[in-house]
C-alpha cells in the first residue's frame, strides 16, 4: 500500500500547486516539500522491509494500461532493492533540494508553478524508477524530460533559456528514439515488455543462439542510445551544459542527482540483457570512458561555475556508464548514490554562491568568498574533496571501485582504466580550480555586490549540511572488500544489490572473471597510484590557482592558446553538430518545401489546372453565344443521330 502513497504525494503536490496556483510562496513551498517529504517517509518503511536477508522484490499492478491485440501492458510497479535504493535517492535528496529551493527562489513573485513542476518531476522520476515494464519506465523517462524542459525554460522571458530547454527536449528525444526502437525490438523478440518476465525468460536460458545474442546486442545498443540521451553521454551530451540555464536547484536535482542517472538505472535494471550482450557492453564501456575523459578536459578551462559543474556531471556520469560497461552495475549504482550526494551539494553550494552574488555565475568575478560564506565554503570543500577522491570520503570509495573493476576487466580493461585515471586527474584539477577561484584569493566582484555579500539563510544551508554529512559517510556503505577486511568492516552495498543484479546462467562463462580473485597488493597499489595522481593533480591546481587568475596563468594560457581555445570552445561540438546535422537538415527541408512541395507537387497541379483552362479557352472558340449557331448545331446533331439510328 505504501507504494501508492509514495507515488501519490508528489502527484497531489504537483496538481495542487499547478492548478490552484497558491499566491503565497510559503504555502506553495510547504505543499511541495510535503509532497516529496511524505513520499520519502512512505518510502523509508518500504526500504526497510527490503533490508532483511533475502527479501525479494514485489510487483504491484495498478491497472491495465494498454491492451490491444496480444499486447497487454499494465501500469505495474516493482519494489526491489535496486528500485528501493533509487527511491531513497530520489525522494531523500529530492526533499533536501525542495527545502533548499524555497530559499533559492525567494526573490520570485510566485513559486507555485516552479514547485508544481518540481513535484511533477519527482512523480515522473518515481514512475521511471518503479516501473516494472519498459513502457511505464518510458512514461517516467519522457516525463522527467518534459519537467526538465519546463524547468530549464522556467525563466522563459529570456529566450536562450527557452531555447536551451527545447534543445534538451529534442536531444533527449533523439535518445528516446533509440529507447523506443529498443522497446520495439524487445517486444518483437520476446513478446513482452515486463522486466520480471524478460528476466525469467533470459535467466532460464542455458545457452544462447547466435541470433538471440545479436538481437540482444541490438536491443542493448538501442537502449543505450536512450541512456546516452538521458545520461548525457557522447555524442548526445550537448544538452546538459546548456541545461544550466534553469534555476540551480533544478540543476542539482534533475541535472546532477536524479534524472541524468536514469540511463545508468535503466541499464542496471536491464543488466540481464546487457550481461548477455557483451559487445554492446563493450560499446557502453568505451562511450562511458570517453565521455568521462572528454567532459573532464572541457571542464578544465570553463569559467562559468555551473558550466564547470555541468561538465563535471557529464564526466561523472561517464564513470557510471563505464562501470556498467565493465559489468560492474553495482559499482555504477554506488557511484550514482555518492555522486548524487556530493554533486547535489556542489550545485546547491554553487547556488548559494550565485544567490549571494546576485546571479553572477562567472568565476572570474568571484574569489575570496570564504570570508563571506563560511558555511557554504565548508560544505563545498567537503564536496570537492569527495569528488576528487580524497581518501575516506564517499567519492574515494565509489570511484576507486569503478577504476578497479575497469582494470580487472580482461583484455581492454587497462585502456578503460587509463581513461578513468586521466579523467580523475582532470577532475581533481578542475574541482580545485573551481574551489580556488570561488573561495580563495582576493575578491574580484564589484563594490556594490561585495557590500551585500552575506551567508545564505538557514533554509538554504541546512540541507547543505545534511548533504555534506552524507557525502562524507555514505561511502562507507561500499568499502572495497580488501579494505573492509583490513578494517574489520564489510562491504554492505554490493551484496545488498547482488540479489537483484546477477549474471544470467547463459553469460556465466564470459563473466566468470567477476568472481576472479586478485592479489591485494595489486589492488592496494592501484588505489595508491590513482589517489596519489589525483591528489598530485589537485595540489598542482591549488598552487596555480590559490591566488585567482594571475599574470602567470595568463601567460600559460597564451602559450597553449590553441589547446586552450579548443577546450574553451568545447571542441566546437555544438558548432559541428550545427554544421553537419542541423543546417543540412534545415536546408533540405527548405529545399523540399520550396522546390518539391511548392514547385513540383503544387506547381505540377497548378500547371495541370492551367493547361485545362488553356484547353478550354482554345476549344471555346465555337461558343459564339449566337443562339442560331447553337440551334443549327443542335438540329444537325439531332438529325445525325436519328439518321444513325434508322440507317
Amino acid at each position: 500500500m505504501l507504494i501508492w502513497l509514495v507515488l501519490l504525494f508528489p502527484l497531489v503536490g504537483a496538481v495542487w500547486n499547478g492548478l490552484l496556483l497558491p499566491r503565497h510562496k510559503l504555502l506553495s513551498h510547504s505543499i511541495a516539500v510535503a509532497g516529496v517529504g511524505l513520499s520519502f517517509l512512505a518510502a523509508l518503511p518500504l526500504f526497510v522491509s527490503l533490508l532483511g536477508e533475502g527479501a525479494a522484490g514485489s510487483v504491484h499492478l495498478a491497472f491495465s494500461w494498454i491492451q490491444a491485440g496480444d499486447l497487454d501492458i499494465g501500469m505495474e510497479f516493482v519494489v526491489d532493492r535496486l528500485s528501493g535504493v533509487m527511491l531513497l535517492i530520489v525522494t531523500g535528496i529530492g526533499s533536501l533540494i525542495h527545502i533548499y529551493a524555497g530559499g533559492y527562489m525567494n526573490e520570485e513573485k510566485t513559486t507555485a508553478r516552479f514547485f508544481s513542476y518540481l513535484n511533477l518531476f519527482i512523480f515522473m522520476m518515481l514512475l521511471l524508477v518503479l516501473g516494472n515494464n519498459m513502457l511505464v519506465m518510458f512514461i517516467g523517462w519522457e516525463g522527467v524530460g518534459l519537467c526538465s524542459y519546463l524547468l530549464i525554460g522556467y525563466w522563459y522571458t529570456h529566450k536562450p533559456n527557452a531555447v536551451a530547454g527545447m534543445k534538451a527536449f529534442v536531444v533527449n528525444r533523439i535518445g528516446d528514439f533509440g529507447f523506443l526502437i529498443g522497446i520495439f525490438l524487445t517486444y518483437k523478440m520476446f513478446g513482452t515488455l515486463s522486466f520480471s518476465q524478460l528476466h525469467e525468460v533470459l535467466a532460464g536460458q542455458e545457452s544462447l543462439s547466435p541470433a538471440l545474442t545479436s538481437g540482444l546486442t541490438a536491443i542493448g545498443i538501442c537502449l543505450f542510445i536512450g541512456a546516452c540521451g538521458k545520461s548525457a553521454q557522447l555524442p548526445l551530451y550537448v544538452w546538459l551544459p546548456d541545461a544550466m540555464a534553469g534555476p540551480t536547484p533544478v540543476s542539482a536535482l534533475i541535472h546532477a542527482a536524479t534524472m541524468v542517472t536514469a540511463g545508468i538505472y535503466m541499464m542496471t535494471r536491464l543488466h540481464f540483457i546487457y550481461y548477455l550482450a557483451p559487445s554492446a557492453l563493450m560499446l557502453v564501456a568505451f562511450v562511458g570512458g570517453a565521455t568521462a575523459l572528454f567532459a573532464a578536459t572541457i571542464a578544465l578551462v570553463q569559467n562559468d561555475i555551473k558550466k564547470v559543474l555541468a561538465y563535471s556531471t557529464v564526466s561523472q556520469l561517464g564513470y557510471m556508464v563505464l562501470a556498467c560497461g565493465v559489468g560492474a552495475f553495482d559499482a555504477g549504482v554506488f557511484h550514482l548514490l555518492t555522486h548524487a550526494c556530493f554533486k547535489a551539494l556542489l550545485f546547491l553550494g554553487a547556488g548559494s554562491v550565485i544567490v549571494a552574488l546576485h546571479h553572477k555565475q562567472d568565476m572570474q568575478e568571484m574569489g575570496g568568498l570564504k570570508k563571506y560564506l563560511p558555511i557554504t565554503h565548508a560544505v563545498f570543500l567537503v564536496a570537492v574533496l569527495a569528488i576528487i577522491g580524497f581518501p575516506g570520503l564517499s567519492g574515494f570509495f565509489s570511484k576507486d571501485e569503478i577504476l578497479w573493476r575497469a582494470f580487472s576487466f580482461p583484455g581492454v580493461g587497462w585502456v578503460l582504466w587509463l581513461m578513468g585515471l586521466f579523467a580523475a586527474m582532470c577532475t581533481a584539477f578542475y574541482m580545485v580550480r573551481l574551489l580556488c577561484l570561488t573561495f580563495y584569493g582576493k575578491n574580484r566582484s564589484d563594490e556594490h555586490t561585495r557590500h551585500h555579500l552575506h551567508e545564505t539563510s538557514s533554509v538554504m544551508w541546512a540541507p547543505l549540511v545534511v548533504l555534506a554529512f552524507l557525502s562524507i559517510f555514505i561511502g562507507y556503505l561500499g568499502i572495497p572488500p580488501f579494505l573492509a577486511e583490513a578494517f574489520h568492516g564489510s562491504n554492505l552495498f554490493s551484496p545488498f544489490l547482488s540479489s537483484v543484479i546477477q549474471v544470467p546462467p547463459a553469460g556465466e562463462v564470459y563473466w566468470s572473471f567477476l568472481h576472479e580473485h586478485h592479489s591485494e597488493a595489486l589492488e592496494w597499489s592501484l588505489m595508491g597510484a590513482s589517489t596519489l595522481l589525483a591528489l598530485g593533480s589537485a595540489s598542482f591546481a591549488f598552487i596555480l590557482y590559490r591566488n585567482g587568475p594571475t599574470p602567470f596563468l595568463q601567460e600559460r594560457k597564451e602559450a597553449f592558446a590553441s589547446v586552450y581555445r579548443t577546450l574553451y570552445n568545447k571542441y566546437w561540438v555544438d558548432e559541428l553538430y550545427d554544421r553537419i546535422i542541423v543546417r543540412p537538415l534545415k536546408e533540405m527541408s527548405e529545399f523540399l518545401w520550396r522546390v518539391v512541395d511548392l514547385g513540383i507537387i503544387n506547381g505540377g497541379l497548378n500547371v495541370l489546372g492551367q493547361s485545362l483552362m488553356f484547353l478550354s479557352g482554345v476549344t471555346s472558340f465555337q461558343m459564339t453565344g449566337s443562339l442560331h449557331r447553337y440551334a443549327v448545331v443542335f438540329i444537325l446533331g439531332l438529325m445525325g443521330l436519328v439518321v444513325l439510328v434508322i440507317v
Partner: protein
Amino acid sequence: MFAWINSSIVSIIIFLPLIVAVLALFSPSVRLSKWIALGGSLVTFIASLHIWFHFDAKSSALQFVEVYDWLPSMGIKYLVGVDGLNLLLVMLTSFLTPCVLVSLWESKVTYIKPFLSLLLVLETGMIGALVAFDLVFFYVFWEVMLIPMYFIIGIWGGSNKIYATTKFVLYTVFGSLLMLVAAIVLYLVHYEEHGFYSTSLLDLYKITQMGLSTQSYLFLAFSLAFAIKVPLWPFHTWLPHAHTEAPTSGSVILAGILLKMGTYGFLRFALPLFPDALVRYSPLLMTLGIVGIVYGALMAWMQKDAKRLVAYSSVSHLGFVVIGSVVILNGKLSEEALTGALYQMINHGISTGALFFLVGMIYERRHTRILSEFGGISAVMPWFAVCLMVATLGSVGLPGTGGFVGEFLILLGVFKFSPLAGILASTGVVLGAIYMLNLCLSILFGPLDKEENKKLTDMTFLEKTYMVPLSVLVILMGVFPNFFLDKTRASLHHLAEHVSEYRLMVSHHDSEPVHEVAGASDTKNK
C-alpha cells in the same frame, strides 16, 4: 417513446443536426439561432453518449442497426449502425461540433446563421458517412460533407479563399468520382457472385470470388479517394491552403474529423473489401505514409505561419494512421497497429482540434498568425499557455497523452512488420518534437517585447469551457486508454480476422502474396 428512441438512435444523431440546421437558419434572431444550434448539437452529443453507454463492447457485430428498403429492385437500403470502428469517431464528431459552436458564440463572423447551419449540415454529413453501411448512402453522405466545407472556406475564408476552396473540392471530387465508379463495379461483381443486387456493405463483405486484378483496380480507386481525403503524400497540397484560408471553426472540423474520413474509409472499405489487393499494395501505402510522416514534419518545421505549421503536422500525423492501418503480419492485419491507427485518429482529432482552436484564439486577438509576431505570450495568457502546452505534448506524443498510445501501438506493429519501416517512421517522433516545440517556443516563450502582445487578454470563460475539456481529454486518453480501447477491441479483432479469412478463400487465384508476407516476418530471432 423510449423504445422508439432506442431503436432509431442512430438516425436521430444523423438527422437531428440537419433539422436543427434548418431551424437555426430561419430563426428570427441571431441569438436564438446560436442557442438552437448549440442546443441541437448538445442533444446530439447526449444521444451519442446514449450509444456509448449502451454499446456492447463484447460484440463485433453492428449495433443499433436500422434497415429500411429504399430501392428494393436495386438492392439499395437505408442501413446504418454502430460498431467499434466508428463509435469513437461518432463520439468525436458529436463532441467537437458543440465545441466549435461555442467557439463561435461571441465571434463577429458575418452571416452567422448560415454559418451555424452549414456546420450542423456538416455534422449530419460526417456522422452519416461514419454510420452508413450502404455504399450509396455512404457516397451521398461523403459528398454532403464536401458542400458545407466548400462554402465555409469559400465564404468565410481568408484572402485567397476561392483558390483554396476550389482546390479542395476539385481534389476531393476527383477522388470520390473514381470511388463511385469502383463502387458500381463492386456492386456488379457482387451481383455476379451472389445473384442479387445489393449495396449493403454487409453483403459486399461476403464477396469471395474477385480476381486479384479486379481487386487491385478497385482498391486503388477507393484508396485514391481516401488518400486524398487523409491526405496522404503526395496528395496533400490542398490541405495547407484549405487550412490557411479556412476560418478557425472550419479548420477544427476539417482537421479534427473530415480528414479521419479518409483513414476511416481505409478501415471500413478498402481493407475488408479487397484483402488480396491490400496485401499487394500495403508496402506502397506504407512507403507513402512514411514519406508523408517525415516530409510533413520537415515541411511543418519550415513554416512561418502557425496554422500552416499545424496543417503540415496533420500530414505527418495522419501518415502514422495510414501506416498503422495497413500492417500485414502473416497474412493478417496487425491488431496492435490497427488499434493504434484508430486511436491515433481520435487523438489527432482532439489535439489538433485544440491546436487550431488555440491558433484561432491568438489570430482573433492579433489578426496575424506569423510566428515571429509573437513571443512571451505565456506571461499574459497563462491559461492559453497551459492549453497550448498540453495540446502540443499530445501532438508530440509524450507518454501520458493519448498521442503516445496511438503512436506506440502503430510503430510497434510497423516495427514487427519491418524494422526498417519502423525506424524510419519513428524519426517522425523526433521531428515532431522539433517543430511542435518550435511553435511553443515562438509563441509562448522568449521576451514579451511586442507592444500588441502585452495587451493580450487571456482565455475567456467561454473559451475555457471547451478548451479545458479538450485538454483534459488529451491526458485522460493517455492515462486510461483502455477505457476507450475496450469498445473497439472486438471489432478490430473481427476486421483483422475477416481480412485473413477472406484472403484464404480467394488465395487460389494468386497465392503469391501469402508467401511474400510470410517472408517478411521470418526475421524473427526466436
